[in-house]
């Protein structure tokens, strides 16, 4: 399936192109770089000269190509507020967000599969009914509200867990500082990742349950029973593999939502990640940082979605990119 790969690649490039256009448009219209550079008290002549020097009077295409060229070399401008390269500011914040997403993903995958499978296998059990009732409650509580409630209960009322920040982080490599190597780090990341997982987890439980129940009705599952295959094998080999195919696609779509929810979670917990930084940048009209965030997030989306597409192609024998050219 050569076409499959090329199509995904072309699509990824097209999306990045669209994002770069949007980013460029924002950069050109939001705020005034001159004011940031030299302040208000400069004469119009000097301003024009500066504009020429900065290339702000160049034709659109020249400016855009310069923007893309710089972006490809990792130059996304300098943050007005931090007075540092925007990309560097973001890269410093990136590990915090990624660890948060990682924590939430582990919770989601770790719980949604067993719960979804259980509720599908035993739809009438009391526990299944409880899980389903909780799941519909779960999808009805917005992430930020879950986060607030958890702070209220665990931090304010009971005082068990910290309510903001990353706590003690251990430096690993480069910009990467981790929460996972100290007890304090674990305590700090627990609530935010649970909060981040809180809306996605019930969604996946329900999705896996629905898919699994459909698969369990299928003829090939009945056939597996007629062959005398053990129940665990029917559930986890025959049914689960077919269940996970549609779940993977939906999961890919949810990565975007997850990054969006990090903004909410990070805001509530004042988690020093990209999302929190982005909102601050918006409030400060820190254009280069906004633009850089947009490009980095867009890039993450495109990469993860392409990977999910490829995984789907590998797992699904009917797409079969494993046997190229066949």
């Amino acid at each position, binding site marked *: 399936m050569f076409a499959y790969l090329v199509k995904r690649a072309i699509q990824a490039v097209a999306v990045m192109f669209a994002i770069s256009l949007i980013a460029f448009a924002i950069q050109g219209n939001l705020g005034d770089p001159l004011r940031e550079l030299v302040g208000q008290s400069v004469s119009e002549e000097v301003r024009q000269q500066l504009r020429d020097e900065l290339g702000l009077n160049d034709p659109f295409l020249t400016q855009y190509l310069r923007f893309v060229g710089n972006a490809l070399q990792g130059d996304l401008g300098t943050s007005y507020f931090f007075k540092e390269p925007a990309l560097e500011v973001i890269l410093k914040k990136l590990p915090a967000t990624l660890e948060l997403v990682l924590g939430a993903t582990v919770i989601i995958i770790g719980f949604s599969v067993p719960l979804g499978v259980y509720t599908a296998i035993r739809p009438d059990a009391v526990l299944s009914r409880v899980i389903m009732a909780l799941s519909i409650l779960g999808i009805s509580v917005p992430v930020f509200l879950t986060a607030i409630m958890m702070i209220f209960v665990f931090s304010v009322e009971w005082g068990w867990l910290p309510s903001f920040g990353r706590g003690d982080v251990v430096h690993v490599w480069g910009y990467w500082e981790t929460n996972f190597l100290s007890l304090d780090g674990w305590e700090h990341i627990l609530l935010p990742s649970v909060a981040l997982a809180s809306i996605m987890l019930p969604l996946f439980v329900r999705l896996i349950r629905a898919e699994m129940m459909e698969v369990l009705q299928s003829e090939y599952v009945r056939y597996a029973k007629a062959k005398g295959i053990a129940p665990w094998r029917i559930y986890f080999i025959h049914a689960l593999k077919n269940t996970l195919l549609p779940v993977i696609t939906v999961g*890919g779509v949810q990565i975007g*939502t997850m990054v969006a929810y990090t903004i909410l979670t990070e805001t509530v917990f004042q988690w020093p990640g990209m999302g929190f930084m982005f909102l601050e940048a918006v409030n400060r009209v820190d254009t280069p940082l906004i633009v850089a965030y*947009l490009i980095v997030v867009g890039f993450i989306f495109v990469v993860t979605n392409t990977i999910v597409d490829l995984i789907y192609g590998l797992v699904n024998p009917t797409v079969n990119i494993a046997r190229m050219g066949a």
Partner: protein
Amino acid sequence: MSSYIETPNQSRLNRIWQSHMAYSFRRNPVAVVSMAVFLFIAVTSFLAPLIAPYNPYDPAQIDIMNSEYPPAWAEGALPEFLLGTDDQGRDLLSTILYGTRLSIIIGLCAVGLQAFLGISIGLLAGYIGGRLDSLLMRLADIQLSFSTLMVAIIFLAVTQALFGSETFNRYAIFFLVAVIGVAEWPQYARTVRATVLAEKKKEYVDSARVLGFGPMRIMVRHILPNSLSPIFVISTVQVANAIISEASLSFLGLGMPPSQPSLGSLISSGFDYIFSGSWWITVIPGIVLVVLVLVINLLGDWMRDVLNPKLYKG
């Protein structure tokens, strides 16, 4: 010429359809209770100007000295503020009623916009097919993968930075409806397209073509009526999602301003006071929001069970 057949058909169709719906509705206590709660919240909030004890938009009725009174059952409460007051001294009950009304209006309008865009695009893509279809659906996939909330946050953030908070706050409600409405079109479009494709394959459509009917007639008279079930089901879920999206955006300060609070902005303004013990400013509107979204989701669940449409996935 077709109006003659349309009217009796429509009413009869409704009658049959509703009787089946009504029957399963009566038999399902969860659905009945959810509907009752939803109607209660909707009616009281829409009658807010008539039944609310205070008008939170009228500065003359607000006294900053009244701020942060707890609800009537707690210690140190003032009896005239049943649910206490917020940080600005507004009566919480009245503010919640007005805020709920705003949340519901934004949710419904946004879903209306989504439905309009999504159904038109879905019908077009499904019926015409070919390159247009693949293009539109790729766009929908990409749009979905970026998630509504992400698109909305970026759009609203940039808009706010561009126009300044004052102008932004004035038109916030329109921005919210527009961005939630536009960003979610793929949900409808994909569902409608999938149903249209499934229906188009069925032989009754072929039969209509062999009988010489035109594409418009086939679309509107034959395919659309058979595509309604999934549209109904996703519409409920979409309203719930839109209300959550609005609340989330307002919580981030990218939606309704504190002077005109929706449920989300109320929760947001109360969040700062949660550490000082004034939990009610956050918790009570939070509960209202959750109950509202929950009953809509429960109704959606019930409807999914009854209509059992094949929804688009993956």
